[in-house]
């Protein structure tokens, strides 16, 4: 598949990439990038085999032996806390004949016994047992050399566990860069940290993974049209200007970005997303800087994407048309499956030490708005499917998508206290342009 990237006279993928490079310079992109088999293969090889990809939150595997099965690209990993408390990720393929060692989505095990011939691995990956070992292999089998293959890179930031297939990937710290400042806003409200409740929602969409990432990285603009039904029911802000009272922030060179939106001047919305006083008190103690507290005080709606495919949403929203808005936090992964097809993984998280009544309200708010049946989520999926379908044909190669919002008339906000480049309103597409610049850079590398 490397041919496209290397040869000038290569397949359609190269052509599309060159076209994308030319167009992005003027804030445009060819529509076909959302549904092209060669681009997809290139993304697998150049992005998903090299990036740091989100796997799980540490609270999903709190006890020795707790594991969950997670994916990067087409590879399956057993993410487990071993008996010494270390988090490990083993490639889920037996070293003998390649059977999936683990077929449950989650569980607890001190050892894994392969169902094919019974090779048995300790949960730190070491091969400890081979049936009829002496008789079958004599002294030939050096068990130490035949443990489960560890993921090439594994690291965490504030409990968010990421992995990379590239042994030479930069550190996670470097990969996240200034995005860490913003991740602190969601992950450091309490000393106890976040916890995932239950298991993730998982569902399939006939849509390209980039559309989810693109939407969350910077698209406040779609809210009033896509989510108009929710605006009408009063679950989303009625003010057509609502994203005017926000910041549009991206981390140059990294692809990450967020939109951070507060209350319009004459609409009273509670400070700190409307979190209960216990959490507000705790965030004041736990945030790493005074600037975090000052920013959080003004926040009501935050959306963001960590390149390539992890998005975060932290918003106050109604769980129906009767009850007042409740803040909730979700992490979601746009997991690429095939050209024009993704699987969504969506987690609900809440501060471990939040009051029980709040955890419950926040959970219900999440599952009714952004879970599988979420009344916001539903309409997004409809859009992304439609785009992907339209992008699959010949004409989409010629259809230049407009990514020019805020391109010439917006200047960075000199007063923004956080890192990255901030524009003083969230009706802009600088974050998207930054996302695709990183995407192109990786595909062309």
């Amino acid at each position, binding site marked *: 598949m490397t041919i496209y990237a290397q040869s000038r006279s290569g397949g359609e993928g190269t052509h599309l990439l060159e076209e994308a490079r030319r167009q992005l310079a003027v804030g445009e992109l060819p529509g076909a990038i959302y549904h092209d088999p060669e681009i997809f293969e290139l993304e697998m090889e150049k992005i998903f085999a090299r990036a740091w990809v989100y796997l799980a939150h540490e609270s*999903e*595997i*709190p*006890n*020795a*032996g*707790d*594991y*969950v099965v997670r994916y990067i690209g087409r590879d399956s990993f057993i993410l487990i806390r071993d008996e010494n408390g270390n988090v490990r990720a083993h490639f889920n393929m037996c070293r003998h004949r390649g059977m999936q060692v683990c077929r449950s989505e*989650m*569980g*607890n*095990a*001190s*050892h894994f*016994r392969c169902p094919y011939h019974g090779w*048995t691995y300790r949960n730190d990956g070491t091969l400890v047992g081979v049936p009829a070992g002496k008789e079958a292999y004599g002294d030939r089998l050096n068990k130490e050399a035949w443990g489960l293959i560890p993921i090439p890179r594994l690291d965490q930031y504030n409990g968010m566990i990421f992995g990379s297939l590239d042994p030479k990937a930069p550190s996670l710290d470097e990969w996240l860069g200034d995005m860490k400042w913003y991740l602190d806003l969601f992950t450091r409200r309490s000393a106890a940290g976040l916890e995932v409740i239950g298991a993730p929602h998982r569902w399939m969409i006939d849509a390209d993974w980039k559309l989810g990432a693109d939407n969350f990285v910077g698209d406040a603009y779609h809210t009033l049209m896509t989510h108009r039904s929710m605006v009408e029911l009063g679950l989303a802000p009625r003010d057509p200007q609502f994203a005017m009272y926000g910041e549009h922030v991206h981390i140059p060179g990294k692809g990450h970005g967020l939109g951070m939106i507060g209350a319009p001047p004459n609409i009273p919305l509670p400070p700190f997303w409307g979190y209960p006083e216990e959490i507000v008190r705790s965030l004041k103690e736990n945030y790493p800087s005074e600037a975090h507290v000052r920013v959080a005080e003004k926040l009501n709606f935050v959306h963001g994407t960590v390149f390539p495919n992890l998005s975060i949403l932290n918003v106050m929203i109604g769980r129906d048309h009767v009850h007042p808005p409740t803040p909730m936090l979700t992490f979601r992964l746009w997991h690429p499956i095939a050209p024009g097809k993704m699987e969504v993984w969506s987690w609900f998280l809440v501060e471990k030490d939040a009051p029980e009544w709040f955890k419950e309200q926040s959970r219900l708010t999440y599952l009714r708005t952004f879970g599988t049946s979420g009344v916001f989520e539903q309409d997004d999926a409809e859009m992304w499917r439609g785009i992907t379908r339209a992008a699959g044909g010949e004409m989409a190669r010629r259809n230049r998508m407009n990514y020019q919002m805020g391109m010439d008339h917006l200047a960075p906000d000199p007063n923004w206290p956080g890192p990255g480049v901030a524009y003083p309103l969230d009706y802009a597409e600088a974050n998207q342009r930054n996302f695709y610049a990183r995407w192109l850079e990786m595909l062309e590398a």
Partner: protein
Amino acid sequence: MKLEVANEFTVVHVQKVKTRNGERLEIYSPRLGYRIQLDPLELESLTWQTTETFSRFLETPFGPGAVEARSLSDLL
């Protein structure tokens, strides 16, 4: 359900404990303060052990580590 298993030499408490994603059997020694949580595969492997295995375990009858020896004068 907590089980107590005792004889004239010692007593242990045995119970099934839930982890977030599964379950284990916990064995607790109230006298020595040691605790272990075994999963089904580990427990199964106990079923084909012989007394010799456990005799070996009991080479240090009060748990691992050196037993502290102090003279009486030291305590005075």
